[in-house]
């Protein structure tokens, strides 16, 4: 990871350094939230001018702690924070892969995770690495028969991004199964508590965020309603997929900020949904759900950021890693991994120009 950051820093030299080059798009919001808090910009009528409620609090809180502990600027402290969280994700993911894909070469997983072309987002000042870590941890704990710990991890996940609530159906199914299996137990109250408590704890991150937003803005759904400022409106996933491909604006992929390619974003959605379909076909239902639903939910209100949501989803990464692991010839392995590393360097350089590479 340190070597990867050094490469990023070397590539950033012409752009004025790592922090300046890496800090694109949402990084500015997170950095400002971490240093000034929500009341700095939120509002429309009650506070300042621009609402920042779309950004969930856990990552800004961790970033604030990192800034305080390191005395670095938020744009730089965030890179180290995200990278550390990514290391945590790679470790937790290795434990998950060991259980779900026992034949996996974990050393290859570490190399894969460092070279994956869009993996640089996990080092950017974004909540992606935190989300990937907590999502994988939640699924792992649930799989290991630790529902209460899974509920706590999901509560943190819901405080990192609202799509964390997509873990709730998995916990609910697990707990219903627990209820059914224990139907003959005499201690009904204990059984019911075991079933309900993880479910009650899991959405706490979202619920507390909503309560705070109600207290400060007067609207518990502010995080959702202000999405319209980013042109996000609920029309369903099919509407945006058709709109994306109908736009046929591939030429904008390489252009700088202010432009984005709907067709490129729609293609990423299709790729992600296709991979979710393959996971479902292989009866990896939980993974298929957590990839497919994490795409469909934001896709229902727009195409923006879909490439990032797909490429940084842990289960998309695991599926890509499983595909890469099928390679047996050393030359093919070297070609694929080398190609990924080269592509990552290209995408990072692309990101530094504020292009739409993975936004």
């Amino acid at each position, binding site marked *: 990871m340190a070597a990867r950051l050094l490469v990023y820093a070397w590539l950033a030299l012409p752009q004025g350094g790592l922090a300046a080059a890496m800090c694109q*798009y949402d990084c500015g919001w997170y950095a400002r939230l971490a240093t000034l808090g929500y009341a700095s*910009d939120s509002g429309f009528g009650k506070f300042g001018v621009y609402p920042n409620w779309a950004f969930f609090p856990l990552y800004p809180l961790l970033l604030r702690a990192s800034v305080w502990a390191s005395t670095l600027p938020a744009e730089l402290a965030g890179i180290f924070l995200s990278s550390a969280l990514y290391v945590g994700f790679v470790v937790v993911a290795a434990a998950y892969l060991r259980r779900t894909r026992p034949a996996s070469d974990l050393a290859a997983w570490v190399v894969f995770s460092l070279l994956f072309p869009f993996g640089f987002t996990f080092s950017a000042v974004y909540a992606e690495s935190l989300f990937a870590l907590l999502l994988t941890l939640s699924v792992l704990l649930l799989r290991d028969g630790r529902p209460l710990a899974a509920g706590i991890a999901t509560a943190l996940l819901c405080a990192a991004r609202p799509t964390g609530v997509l873990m709730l159906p998995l916990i609910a199914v697990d707990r219903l199964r627990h209820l059914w299996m224990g139907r003959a137990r005499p201690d009904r109250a204990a059984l*019911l*508590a075991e079933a309900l408590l993880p479910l009650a704890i899991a959405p*706490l991150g979202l*619920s507390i965020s909503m309560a705070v937003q109600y207290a400060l803005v007067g609207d*518990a*759904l502010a995080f959702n309603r202000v999405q319209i400022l980013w042109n996000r409106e609920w029309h369903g996933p099919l509407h945006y997929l058709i709109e994306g491909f109908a736009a046929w604006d591939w030429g904008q992929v390489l252009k700088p900020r202010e432009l984005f390619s709907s067709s490129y974003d729609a293609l990423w959605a299709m790729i992600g949904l296709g991979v979710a379909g393959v996971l479902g076909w292989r009866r990896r239902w939980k993974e298929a759900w957590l990839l497919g639903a994490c795409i469909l939910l934001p896709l229902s209100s727009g195409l923006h950021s879909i490439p990032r949501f797909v490429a940084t989803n842990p289960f998309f990464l695991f599926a890509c890693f499983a595909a890469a692991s099928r390679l047996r010839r050393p030359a093919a392995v070297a070609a694929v991994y080398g190609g990924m590393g080269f592509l990552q360097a290209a995408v990072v350089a692309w990101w530094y120009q*504020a292009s739409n590479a993975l*936004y």
Partner: protein
Amino acid sequence: MRRFPAFARLAFALLLIAAQGAVVWVGLFRPNVSEIYRAMFIDKTIDDFPEPSFNTKGR
């Protein structure tokens, strides 16, 4: 958590669920916002939004 009696754990779970249900209910049906906020984000009668301040592209 097992150190607490089963009924206490169950009551705590039900309390959490009720509290979170109340938050969702208030969020859906009882927003307490300014007129400009309501016009822009709830009724959507204003559509000339200002540009978000820190990112220059959609999210």
